[in-house]
């Protein structure tokens, strides 16, 4: 990751997203997280179910009103977009690819209407011919052909549907795409196709991705940087190679040690590292601290030394 020329496209500052606020069943789905995403990169967000990664994605695209904190997109707070025009522009710049390609496409709409919905709403097509042309181009971009445009979603396989979902997201020429588990419903051989497509589109159109997933090996492959979430908190952020090779936080270590590897020799000798979450409730004040260059770990004041020590051992800190 080249930090020198990196330009922030998204800044999440102390975001809190609580549900049922003030009630006995209050849920702190996202509890004070901060991170930045740079233009043109893929930021991977990993964590177990219930860690708040999906909520974070949804809060960023402003499907929720944040309980506290702010989200800056291109330097502007998304919460302050009050005029229709501003909101429309924001929605155009930021798009989402959903997890389930079966549930996220309207079964009663033809593919061309699904893909063109954003074009229609934002009046991006001059006339019908232009609209059809745009749809056909988009389908071609994602590896489908124009004959597919008058079909219905049920006529497609899971991988093809996910391509339709991607075409729909791209229809409005977004800058930033949130992909929430875009491949976990797909077969292994199809997953690779979709990931390759996403990478290709990123190269060609300079897209920025927030890639949310629990499949750690795929996240590593596609991401430039990775954030690890647990219990609604961000525990560690670093370059993807670094975080996989030298995780500093115990939870990240534990998570990585549980990933099954398609190598029987490795599996026979694998040792899982258990994570004891109890120390998170000890009441100490913890914040994200930059332990090594661009490597952030959530730590209390008296833990910084320990993490710095670990970073030295992994020679992440150059003297």
């Amino acid at each position, binding site marked *: 990751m080249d930090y020198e020329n990196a330009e922030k496209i998204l800044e999440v500052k102390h975001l809190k997203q609580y549900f049922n606020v003030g009630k006995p069943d209050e849920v702190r789905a996202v509890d004070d997280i901060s991170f930045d995403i740079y233009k043109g990169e893929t930021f991977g967000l990993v964590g177990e179910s219930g860690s708040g990664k999906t909520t974070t994605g949804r809060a960023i695209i402003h499907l929720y009103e944040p309980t506290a904190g702010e989200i800056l997109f291109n330097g502007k707070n998304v919460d302050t977009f009050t005029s229709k025009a501003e909101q429309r522009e924001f929605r155009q710049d930021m798009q989402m690819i959903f997890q389930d390609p079966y549930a996220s496409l309207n079964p009663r709409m033809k593919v061309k209407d699904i893909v063109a919905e954003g074009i229609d709403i934002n009046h991006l097509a001059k006339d019908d011919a232009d609209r059809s042309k745009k749809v056909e181009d988009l389908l071609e971009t994602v590896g489908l052909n124009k004959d597919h445009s008058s079909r219905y979603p049920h006529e497609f396989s899971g991988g093809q549907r996910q391509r339709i979902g991607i075409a729909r997201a791209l229809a409005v020429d977004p800058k930033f795409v949130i992909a929430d588990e875009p491949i976990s419903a797909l077969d292994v051989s199809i997953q690779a196709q979709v990931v390759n497509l996403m990478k290709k589109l990123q190269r060609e159109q300079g897209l920025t991705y927030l890639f949310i997933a629990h499949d750690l*090996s795929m996240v590593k492959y596609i991401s430039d940087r990775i954030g690890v979430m647990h219990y609604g908190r961000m525990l560690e952020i670093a370059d993807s190679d670094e975080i996989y090779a030298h995780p500093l936080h115990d939870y990240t270590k534990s998570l990585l040690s549980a990933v099954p590897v398609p190598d029987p020799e490795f599996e026979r000798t694998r040792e899982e590292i258990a994570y004891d979450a109890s120390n998170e409730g000890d009441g100490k004040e913890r914040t994200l601290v930059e332990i090594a260059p661009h490597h952030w770990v959530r730590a209390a004041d008296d833990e910084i030394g320990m993490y710095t020590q670990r970073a030295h051992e992994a020679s992440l800190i150059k003297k």
Partner: protein
Amino acid sequence: MDNEKDILEVRNLQVNFKTYAGDVKAIRNVSFDLRKGETLAIVGESGSGKSVTTRTIMGLNARNADITSGTIMYKGEDLLKKTEKEMEGIRGQDIAEIFQDPMTSLDPTMKIGRQIAEPLMVHKGMKKEKALAQALEMMKLVGITDAENRINDYPHQFSGGMRQRIVIAIALINYPEILIADEPTTALDVTIQAQILNLMKELQDKISTSIIFITHDLGVVAGMADRVAVMYAGKIVEYGTVDEIFYNPKHPYTWGLLSSMPTLDTGGDELPSIPGTPPDLLDPPTGDAFAARNAYALKIDTEQEPPFFKVSDTHYAATWLLHPDAPKVTPPDQIVARQKKYAEMQKDLVKQQRPSIPVEEEEEQQ
């Protein structure tokens, strides 16, 4: 390969599903054995016939299923010839299944103790108190904490991982000879998945069950399986020991599967992928069903179906590339690397057989 250790022998199984559009040929001539105490993994994409195979063994196919040929021999008897009543006696007693989704495979209105005890009461005619006592033991065995107090809880009061433990407890309560695990951890997080897989291995050692493990996750297969069968379009295309499949695969489909899964070391701009989609089994193509997606396809692949070629006593693959007259091809890089590792492992094996040379600990390569 009829030997005494085989506990289940599936031969020439063919299953069609009758639909309005015609017959879907879901299983096209599948044969395999399951040995006592082993874990056989069946891998393949959705629609390749993994689940239909095991559902046929359990006698749980949908009504439009038509078993056109084949035998499934268990303890000298053909399961396909059993009546529904007889199958009821076998299911949950001799052969049990762990289903994929722990959210839907438990009865939400029944206390979990009762659900775990039910197979004992049904199959062994056990009294409720005694069955519940055994259920409690089982709950402890599968690692449900505070079992005494939780035996009267309902499924919704448990987390996903705990629910899957309950499902495992139900499946194992009668110490079945065969356990079918159909994607048992796919719905779970990696850390929970690791716990459940360890639990299954532990329990297998304790009660020496044979496991048929269905999954599409090759990482899980590498850790769980003794032998692996790779299915594609209703057929087994390659089978062998776990090392043979992972380090010396011969079928281009197995190559594709192994390469398209990124490991934690995979880099580069493009992930090797298998182009296209699986064939329509309403009308399976002639020849090798994988030919259309296969970069290594030969002319004969589109004309004639490849038979199984023997690689070793335990390793067979159905691809024309193994025919003596076939041209030599170079598999994808990742596979070549795997084969290299295999060759080294074989050398080590030979070394180890000579006791005079001390066994060297090899460092894992970075």
